[in-house]
């Protein structure tokens, strides 16, 4: 059969192919004949094209009473389009060995396409159909809605999910970021095919579109295929951004009771914007506190020295209108209070004394080297290119990054530690049956 021959041919081609020479990631800014903009890394080292793209406006812009509409709409884009109902659309993807998917963050509606370069026409045609002629068939709307409602239920039985959700709802109370991107069961019930179609029309437009492509494809060919997939979308005008977020002004502890032997804890502090001049100092600080892996202070103090937890880590989260530093750990109900005391002590110590010279130097070495560790597949590189665009970075950022990290001084890290690591506005969420932790009213 045709399908089989095509795939076997591609497989054979892969076996013959020799890898391209190693080198820096060479990013080209491409403008298509219709004026669409994209970034491209041409890479012949795998017979694959990976696309990562997004539209402005995510779950945070769900209309009131329609929470979850963006997420449900995004899911349904690949559930039938044009003349193809769900099963037919799926089969076309499978036959081309193409994989097309959409997802939703608070700020953006994101999509990925991965296709063998030999099948790229078909891959981009399916993408065009999904973007411009999604069907929103009633039976698929019902099926996806039921799956999302079940997933919301399931999340309630997982302590880590409960903690994550509660943290967002508490930290962003009254702000759109506090809403669950998956929506509520009640709101989901009210969503109909016309509402979903309308939501697709409000988000799928060329204005605010970001596109990154990686793989065995050249500029001209990419331009032609992008025009075909995205060219007929309206130019449109992006939705208004969410309002400004006011960080909490007092510490708060929330306990969610669950009958489990281990309590899961999350702690949030106001973070730092991606375009802040101290961003790289903050990256170093986070690495020293709880980022990276087994070298961090939290790992060492909470896990290695005291055996209080399997994991203890921190991460910087950046949204369009907010930023957080989030610390996470989990410990037996009887010991979680002690684990959190150790975490707080480390925050205070790092804030007061700053990092050691050795910690500082090691953090910079790690951050410089770590970027390469993530460049291991076409889709990983496409995702990196896409997130660089979301962060408003220039295409030559990767060549400048090492210098930006190199320029950080230990005083910068001390300063950012004093700015970020304070107790006045910490939100703590504990899920389980914690002993010795009292919730604030």
């Amino acid at each position, binding site marked *: 059969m045709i399908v089989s021959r095509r795939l076997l041919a591609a497989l054979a081609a892969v076996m013959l192919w020799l890898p391209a020479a190693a080198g820096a990631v060479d990013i080209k800014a491409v403008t298509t004949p219709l004026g669409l903009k994209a970034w491209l890394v041409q890479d012949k080292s795998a017979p694959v094209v990976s696309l990562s793209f997004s539209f402005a406006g995510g779950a945070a812009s769900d209309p009131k009473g329609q929470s979850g509409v963006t997420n449900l709409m995004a899911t349904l884009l690949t559930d039938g389009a044009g003349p193809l109902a769900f099963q037919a659309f799926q089969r076309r993807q499978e036959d081309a060995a193409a994989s097309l998917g959409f997802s939703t963050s608070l700020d953006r509606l994101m999509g990925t396409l991965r296709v063998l370069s030999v099948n790229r026409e078909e891959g981009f045609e399916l993408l065009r159909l999904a973007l411009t002629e999604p069907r929103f068939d009633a039976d698929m709307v019902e099926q996806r809605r039921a799956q999302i409602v079940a997933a919301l239920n399931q999340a309630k039985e997982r302590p880590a999910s409960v903690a994550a959700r509660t943290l967002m709802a508490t930290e962003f109370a009254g702000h759109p970021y506090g809403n669950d991107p998956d929506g509520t069961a009640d709101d989901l019930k009210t969503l109909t095919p016309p509402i979903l179609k309308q939501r697709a029309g409000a988000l799928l437009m060329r204005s605010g579109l970001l596109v990154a492509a990686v793989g065995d494809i050249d500029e001209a060919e990419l331009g032609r295929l992008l025009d075909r997939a995205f060219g007929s979308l309206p130019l449109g005008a992006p939705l208004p951004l969410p309002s400004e977020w006011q960080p909490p002004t007092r510490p708060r502890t929330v306990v969610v009771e669950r009958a489990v032997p281990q309590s899961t804890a999350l702690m949030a502090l106001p973070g730092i914007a991606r375009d802040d001049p101290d961003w790289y100092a903050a990256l170093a600080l986070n690495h020293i506190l709880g980022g*990276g*892996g087994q*070298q961090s202070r939290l790992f060492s103090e909470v896990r290695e020295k005291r055996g209080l937890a399997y994991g203890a880590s921190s991460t910087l989260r950046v949204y369009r209108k907010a930023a957080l530093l989030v610390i996470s750990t989990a410990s037996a109900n009887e010991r979680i209070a002690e684990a959190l005391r150790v975490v707080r002590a480390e925050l205070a110590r790092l804030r007061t004394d700053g990092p050691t010279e050795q910690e500082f130097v090691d953090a910079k070495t790690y951050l410089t080297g770590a970027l390469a560790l993530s460049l291991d597949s076409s889709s990983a590189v496409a995702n990196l290119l896409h997130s660089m665009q979301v962060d408003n970075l220039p295409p030559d950022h990767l060549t400048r990054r090492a210098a930006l990290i190199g320029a950080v001084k230990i005083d910068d890290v001390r300063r950012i530690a004093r700015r970020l690591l304070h107790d006045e506005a910490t939100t703590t969420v504990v899920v389980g049956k914690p002993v010795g932790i009292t919730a604030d009213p």
Partner: protein
Amino acid sequence: MMRRRALLGGLGAGLAFAPQAPAWAKLFSVERRRAETFTLANGLQVVVLPSTRAPIVTQLVIYKVGSADEVFGKTGIAHFLEHMMFKGTATVAPAEFSRTVSKNGGRDNAYTTYDSTGYYQTVAPDRLDLVMRMEADRMTGLRITEKELIPERQVVLEERRMRTENSPSALLDEAVSEQLFGRHKPYGMPVSGYVEDVKRLTVADLMAFYGKYYAPNNAILIVAGDTTVEQVRKLAEKYYGPLAARKVEPRRRPDAGAADLPQRTIRADARVAEPRWSRHYLAPSYAKGLTQHAYALQVLARLLGGGETSRLWRALVVDRKLGLSAWASYSPTSLGLTSFDLGVHPASTSPMAEVESAVGGQLGKLIDEGVTAEEVERAQNRLLAAAIYAQDSLASGPRTYGATLAIGGTMADIDAWPQRIAAVTPADVVAAARHVWRPDGLVTAMLTPQGGAR
């Protein structure tokens, strides 16, 4: 599902417990045709998978030992030992191993499965020398002290609380394994061990296990990425070459599954919000049982429950609307027998009995009416396509090579995989289904909210 869950991530704090992607789909690492292998005089097998896609290199050392080599009463040793491997040697202080990798811009971790234990680092090419030196050092030079053991025991128990005791579904999986493979039998006991055993393990227990299994002739060294065979050979000779071989007893796995245990397990748990129905059949692997079915079973799992165009999905989710999702999975990389698993997430209004009978109807129909050439071909294509995409990722290759070699597979087996998958016929698929879907080697599992209202 069960076998996938049996894989324990090692020290990686904060790492999600990601299920393995379909095992054999990953067999094509980047440039698999260029994989080379050689064996040092002391018996260490070395595999090199060169790729210049990114300026990084991964070292993976796999020991042919896992939790299934433990005995009841001393379970959890393999996994506990994996944790203690980061606690120092004569030349590397406790915790210094990972700290050194990190300060050199790299990442490292480890994992334990039923049949193997792996340690890996990803670093810049000029740091390969460093990590090979350190990995060779702890192959025979580990030192474990009471001082380091005591807090780490708590870490291991917290890991178990996080992965298993906090999760009704994981607890049900443990019950399924026990009833399918046998109480106190190698695959019937948890990879992380029984809590009571872990609490009692001593420095002497761990060192005895280490001395018995950690040796160059019981290990496989895999290096993938931006390096050359010559470079790896030079470094392997330098650092691993001087280590002495040791006599290692051959490993054994039972020829049969559980006898006399109930074929049904139900977990009613107040923490459960959504029910689950699943069925688990004892199945041959690449290494045990009627191994000739191992390739057809991969095609069977794909066409029966691989994705939203599969038989179970169409019948249960689309046509009868009894389920919200349906799946099947089979992993042949096991030294002993393995399992063929399938399951349904029942819709809120579906009685379990009706779901079970609908699944039974589908299995019976497949046996009675066979499968079409077209659906076999689609399943084959999807397996092959997944293999092509796996070549696009540097991360997936070494572990899959390791899993296969650790159970006695050869490089030739790995090379022949696409041909063997492509050679599967509709009759092979039905014969494999007939062999595995027997009434005497199965467990049916149900997870329900307390009271089992549905």
